[in-house]
């Protein structure tokens, strides 16, 4: 069943990747198998509408509302569905909470699994061989490359997304954010803090 191709079909297409895409799009459009307007719609969705601002709103609400946070951590799917954050690559969500004793970090060593409805399309580094290969074996050295150093008494739990479950890290609420509104809090939530390769932004840094 799994044929190993000596004459792989991709080798039949033009070598330049941009031309390869164009050739495939033209062929599939001529056959009536794809609609270029649908492609535009997919791209617009992930370029402009679905991105890390969704996840940031969830984190900010969890910081702001203990009941919401408890429900989110207990069973994320219905909570996120209520907010309209569901669908492709976010069908089965689990939210994991950072604490002073445990830092969570997410990787997909086998491909590039990532919670699209909450964070959008993964950044290039998340899909890179270096991140996929190293995040499980030396997460602290990888974190250092993101400028993050954890206290020695904080353990790291790396989640390798090997199934259709997608993980979102709930970062620790930064000091000095007491009394801030949900909207102000959301501005402290970076994309990387929800993957676990970053921390939430300190209010004084966000304000500067």
């Amino acid at each position, binding site marked *: 069943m799994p044929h190993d*191709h000596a004459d792989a079909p991709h080798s039949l297409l033009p070598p330049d990747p941009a031309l390869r895409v164009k050739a495939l799009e033209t062929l599939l459009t001529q*056959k009536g198998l794809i609609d270029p307007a649908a492609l535009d719609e997919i791209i617009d969705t992930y370029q402009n509408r679905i991105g890390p601002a969704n996840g940031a709103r969830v984190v900010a609400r969890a910081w702001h509302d203990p009941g919401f946070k408890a429900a989110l951590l207990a069973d994320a799917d219905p909570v996120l569905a209520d907010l309209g954050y569901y669908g492709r690559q976010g069908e*089965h969500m*689990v939210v994991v909470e950072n604490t002073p004793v445990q830092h969570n970090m997410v990787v997909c060593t086998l491909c*590039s699994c990532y919670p699209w409805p909450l964070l959008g399309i993964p950044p290039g580094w998340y899909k890179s061989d270096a991140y996929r290969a190293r995040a499980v074996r030396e997460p602290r050295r990888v974190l250092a490359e993101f400028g993050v150093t954890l206290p020695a008494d904080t353990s790291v739990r790396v989640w390798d997304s090997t199934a259709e479950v997608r993980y979102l890290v709930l970062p620790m609420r930064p000091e000095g954010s007491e009394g801030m509104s949900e909207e102000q809090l959301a501005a402290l939530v970076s994309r990387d803090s929800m993957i676990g390769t970053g921390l939430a932004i300190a209010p004084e840094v966000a304000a500067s």
Partner: protein
Amino acid sequence: MSRVHDMGGRFGDGPVTPEPQGAPVFAEDWHARALAITLACGALGQWNIDTSRHARERLAPLDYTRFSYYEKWLAGLATLLVEKQVLSAKDLASATDGRDGTGADRAAPHPLAARALKAADVAAALAKGGPADRPSDVAVAFAPGDPVRCRRPGGNRLVAGGHTRLPTYAVGARGWIVRVHGTHVLPDSAAHGLGEAPEPLYAVAFAASDLWSAPEHPGDEVVLDLWQSYLEAV
């Protein structure tokens, strides 16, 4: 027995180079196009997510390594389109950058054309997604806290060289159940048209010291999502 994509724990890749958080979602226009074409072709219903992952994984190691991310997607898509007989190798060979447009057979309607994803249906298709949980007859064998071991040898037990989601670095390792996810489609079966074969899926934690010869920190752990048939009781 492993394939090139199974790179967890590998040495030699050098530093991770994070691009700025405000960087464009798609670094190149063709990246966006490649993603959209792949999703749109998936909507034709000729394969599932496990089939498409496997199509990328079984690229020749030389190709997998030299291709950028979306080139892998394109190559996997070309494989699937031909294997599932959506297009022929001749179709692909005649595809150019769009400036020709000739070819008599292209005028005939394709049998799958009625299934083509329309712009008006994109939002609903993306919102629907592809849930992987299914009812299963397989009884849940483990509970949180139970010690387990990943079976050895790893690899797909239904198809030699087939798709599996047990990374090589965890084969034979001892861990413990941290979460029961319910019953999910088994990729080892579904990727090869052998049925969804749903079974219990667990989050399983492993001490870093049980996976790596030189763990960074005694308290660190790695958690993997693993199907029941990947595990044995300890």
